[in-house]
């Protein structure tokens, strides 16, 4: 059986999300870098695999899949004992609720502010707009107040055990902290101690720490 191939970018945010879950589940994979700088992801030979011209996608022994959350769900479904997607009906419903909350209430503002903050931090010459960042962070502050209410009653976003719904908050949950200091940023406010606790746990996981310098082919765990 061929090793899973992850077509993406070493430093690309969505590639990192997939790599984090592959690492959580100890799945060996090969990173195949796509030359995004030169528009390789918009060429016809790439669009055959990913018709929206986005990275990443995977090739798992001939099975092609794109959209990072779908990729992560597919890998987790092959490892049901991990609990990253709960199987009992009620826990599964609450997992889907939390996964949807991440999509609708976290990602829109976190990804837009986070991407720009990451570009600034990395020193890339790509235009950013401080007002756009500020507006999205303002939206996110209010959303995180609701997260605080949820996380004051349970350890993780879907219940008492970690699931993919928590991990989907990476990497943008980290990038939005680049506005502020390590001890006082949007994920670490004195007014939201439960969000801070949850965030700190997430970013201490070996699966996140493994690729701080960029995603790389990983064949042994």
């Amino acid at each position, binding site marked *: 059986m061929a090793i899973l191939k992850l077509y993406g970018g070493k430093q690309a945010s969505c590639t990192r999300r997939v790599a984090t879950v592959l690492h959580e589940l100890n799945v060996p994979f090969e990173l195949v870098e796509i030359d995004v700088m030169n528009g390789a992801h918009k060429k016809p030979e790439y*669009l055959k695999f990913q*018709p*929206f*011209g986005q990275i990443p996608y995977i090739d798992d022994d001939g*099975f092609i*899949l*794109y*959209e*990072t*959350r*779908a990729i992560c*769900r*597919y890998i987790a*479904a*092959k490892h049901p004992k991990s609990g990253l997607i709960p199987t009992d*009906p*009620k826990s*599964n*419903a*609450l997992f*889907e*609720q939390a*996964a*949807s*909350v991440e*999509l*609708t*209430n976290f990602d*829109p503002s976190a990804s837009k502010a986070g991407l720009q903050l990451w570009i600034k931090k990395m020193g890339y010459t790509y235009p950013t707009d401080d007002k756009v960042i500020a507006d999205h962070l303002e939206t996110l502050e209010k*959303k995180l107040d*609701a997260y605080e*209410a*949820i996380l004051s009653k349970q350890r993780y976003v879907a219940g008492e055990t970690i699931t993919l719904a928590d991990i989907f908050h990476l990497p943008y949950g980290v990038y939005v902290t680049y506005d502020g200091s390590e001890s006082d940023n949007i994920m670490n406010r004195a007014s939201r101690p439960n969000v801070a606790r949850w965030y700190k746990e997430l970013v201490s996981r070996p699966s996140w720490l493994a690729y701080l310098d960029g995603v790389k082919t990983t064949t042994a765990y």
Partner: protein
Amino acid sequence: MVLKLHGFALSTCTRRVATVLHEYKIPFELVPVDPSKGEHKAAAYLEKQPFGQVPYIEDDGLTLFESRAICRYIVDKYRAPAGVSPLVPKDTKGKALFEQAASIEYSNFDPYASGAVREKVFKPMRGLPTDQSAYDFCVSTLSAKLDGYEAILGKQKYLAGDEITLADLFHIPYASMLAAAGCDLMTTKGPNVTRWFNELTARASWVAVKDGAKSFSSY
């Protein structure tokens, strides 16, 4: 005890859930929430839905919010009626391709379709000014994304394969409002998108709720 859907008749997300309830012929009671009175931001409501959004359901002791999660729960819990194929595949690859399609809806369609509808339909309803450049951005981005849809739907009948799934149904509420928002892309982008859009909006489950979701006790 009958499933309770807390929402309002013309809400896009309430109708998204009601469509799936109709697909699976599940009786339900629509419990009205009046956003014009701020009912969805009242303390009692926030206890159930901490983001102050519509809808949520109560079913068999479970409270659940996020319309797409509610739809998934319905399909997981209830059996598809005779002659209706399950709206979420169970086999590993079929499920993965469904998840890919569900993610496409959320990341490549919804932001731009809902954004266009917000600017030209919801904002005027609330007496707020339209941001024309935001609208133009949504429409031009949606047009580019629908090129991807046109390619996919030229090879298969629906977004996840040749069977309809929740991923297709998730599109309907906002897709059906684009014309009212002055955007005709769903019927002009290409023959495949047009065919798919027309099939979806002709489904009995959508026709039953498009002009307003309401309590339904027998099918």
